[in-house]
């Protein structure tokens, strides 16, 4: 049986200059690749995490799946049906099955609409007549743990956590199979983060949802996702199960990301900085391994030759010439000590 969602060699390009402008500036290639050669699959009931810094293309990938940006190459298959190349009108059906939650819980709600019509909106969009939108709104609110008083509230009257719940309710309205959640916990207080993640987890159990979680928050993604992909400059540099990636990261970038998360313990302060510099511009991708400009372990070969994305352990892929085989070996070759997780 094929997976629910299968993405293969997906490429999303954006035009940076118009035809005339490109000609005047003498650009051969007025495009940037926001997502490059990305492949993954999502099974029913699974949670897949996409992790990377801003500018890594993780949000673009999410938006390409739901058709908000157009993919140029590769394929996205939902239940075996090809989505790349579909016209906007043909995407309607897809959007009943895949829902998206956006970063800002309050700004992603239409500011002058009451919660009641926010939740009932999808029924109107898809012209669903066999369900009473009002009753559905009540049912969905209850499902996400809000009382009926909220039906009459406007988005600016809600706290971040409440608005996020409304967002979840709206995403669930058409019984989707997949939910793409872009930074579901951004801007929320730590205690509220837990509530939202618990809610999402309960809904996954009850409704058999699959999640694609886009985030830069590693501590959170560790608790919620089954598998992870680490993105850098639009590519997957490492994928594997969450446990495997947190315990045995193979790519130096993953290691750097993990080490950047501060431990809430004053006895475990860090003196060293694992990852220096910033993510390069998509306009000027580095030659060879694209991470070599920031990689503390870069060697001769990395400057000239692009690494192959290959399996380093069963189900664990990485694109690095010198992947860490094992934490113990990493120490042995004089690399930085692994973070204690």
């Amino acid at each position, binding site marked *: 049986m094929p997976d629910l969602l299968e993405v293969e060699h997906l490429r999303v390009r954006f035009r940076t200059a118009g035809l005339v402008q490109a000609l005047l500036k003498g650009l051969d290639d007025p495009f940037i690749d926001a997502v490059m050669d990305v492949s993954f699959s999502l099974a029913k009931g699974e949670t897949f995490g996409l992790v990377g810094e801003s500018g890594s293309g993780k949000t673009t990938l999410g938006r390409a799946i739901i058709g908000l940006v157009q993919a140029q190459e590769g394929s996205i298959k939902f239940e075996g049906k090809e989505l790349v190349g579909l016209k906007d009108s043909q995407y309607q059906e897809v959007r*009943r099955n895949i*829902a998206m939650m956006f970063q800002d819980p309050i700004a992603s709600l239409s500011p002058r*609409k009451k919660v009641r019509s926010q939740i009932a909106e999808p029924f109107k969009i898809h012209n669903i007549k066999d369900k009473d939108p009002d009753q559905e709104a009540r049912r969905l609110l209850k499902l996400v743990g809000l009382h009926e008083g909220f039906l009459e*509230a406007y988005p600016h009257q809600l*706290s971040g956590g409440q608005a996020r719940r409304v967002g979840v309710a709206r995403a669930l309205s058409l019984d989707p199979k997949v939910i793409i959640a872009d930074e579901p916990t951004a801007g929320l207080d730590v205690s509220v983060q837990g509530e939202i993640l618990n809610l999402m987890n309960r809904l996954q159990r009850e409704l058999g949802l699959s999640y694609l979680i886009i985030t830069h928050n590693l501590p959170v993604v560790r608790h919620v996702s089954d598998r992870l992909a680490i993105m850098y400059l639009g590519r997957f540099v490492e994928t594997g199960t969450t446990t495997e990636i947190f315990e045995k990261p193979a790519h130096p970038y993953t290691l750097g990301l993990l080490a950047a998360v501060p431990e809430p313990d004053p006895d475990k302060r860090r003196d060293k900085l694992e990852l220096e510099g910033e993510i390069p511009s998509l306009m000027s991708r580095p030659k060879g391994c694209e991470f070599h400009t920031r990689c503390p372990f870069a060697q001769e070969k990395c400057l000239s030759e692009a690494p192959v994305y290959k399996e380093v352990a069963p189900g664990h892929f990485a694109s690095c010439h010198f992947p860490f085989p094992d934490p113990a070996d990493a120490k042995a070759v004089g690399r930085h000590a692994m973070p204690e997780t």
Partner: protein
Amino acid sequence: MTTTTPEDTAGADAPIKREPRLAWLWQLLRNPLGALGLFLVLLIVISALGADVFSPYDYKALDVKNRLAGPSWAHLLGTDNLGRDTFSRILHGGQVALYVALVSIGVSLVLGLALGMLAGYGPRWLDNILLLCFDSVRAFPVIMFALAVITVVGPSLETIIGVVIMTTTPGYARIARNATLSLKNNEFILAERSLGARGKRIMISHLLPNLIAPLLILCSMDIPVVITIEAGLSFLGLGVKPPTPSWGSILYDGYSFIRNTPWIVIAGGIPLIITTLGFTFLGESLRDVFDPKMKKDR
């Protein structure tokens, strides 16, 4: 030691921050300028609407014996050179002024919103074409354009309305377009698109409610401008046809006798001043109330 329990309904039963329904009205009235603006606007609107009730005389009735009379209990603001009661003429002139202003601004608003949203939300080429149209119309000076049209079509109330619509629509359209462009990439629009909403629905139920408040405030400030245009054209004899009174024609009538009987000009000028101040104060205070940057949270 675990004191916290895993649960996901925490905080969900919290109260909702609610404001009283007419909070904006109280906020408006708390501002002295806003209260004054609202009072003046209501004064103008009520006197114009009730012109037939409040007028002591028929505005067309001639009283040749009492020509150019000064203010008295019989004629509150005196009479003009044909012996017509100036107060009654001013009340009816207000009707004309408000009619011209509301109809033309109303139509411009609707047209401007529609074209602006199309330009802002639609494809790039449509935006370019519409912008070109807006800007070429806006390049004409209003009065010259009005004079040209009146020369061709002939003076009438409808001509004035038409000219005002032609010249103010592009301004509204441009503002609506710019606002649409900045709203278009907001997360809530993306969220609607991700739910499957199409252009028409996004424009009508999500963009429109967010555009209308700032434009209405602008309208409020444009109303006196239109009234002045109407008065100006009527003053030149290019507006409404006599005997229909207009503040502009009252001014013109009084203008010839300004040395001996200045009260006609004064009586014709005061409502113009009241209208301009009223709508401007109201518009500015409304902007203070609705502009989220000015709004204090606590």
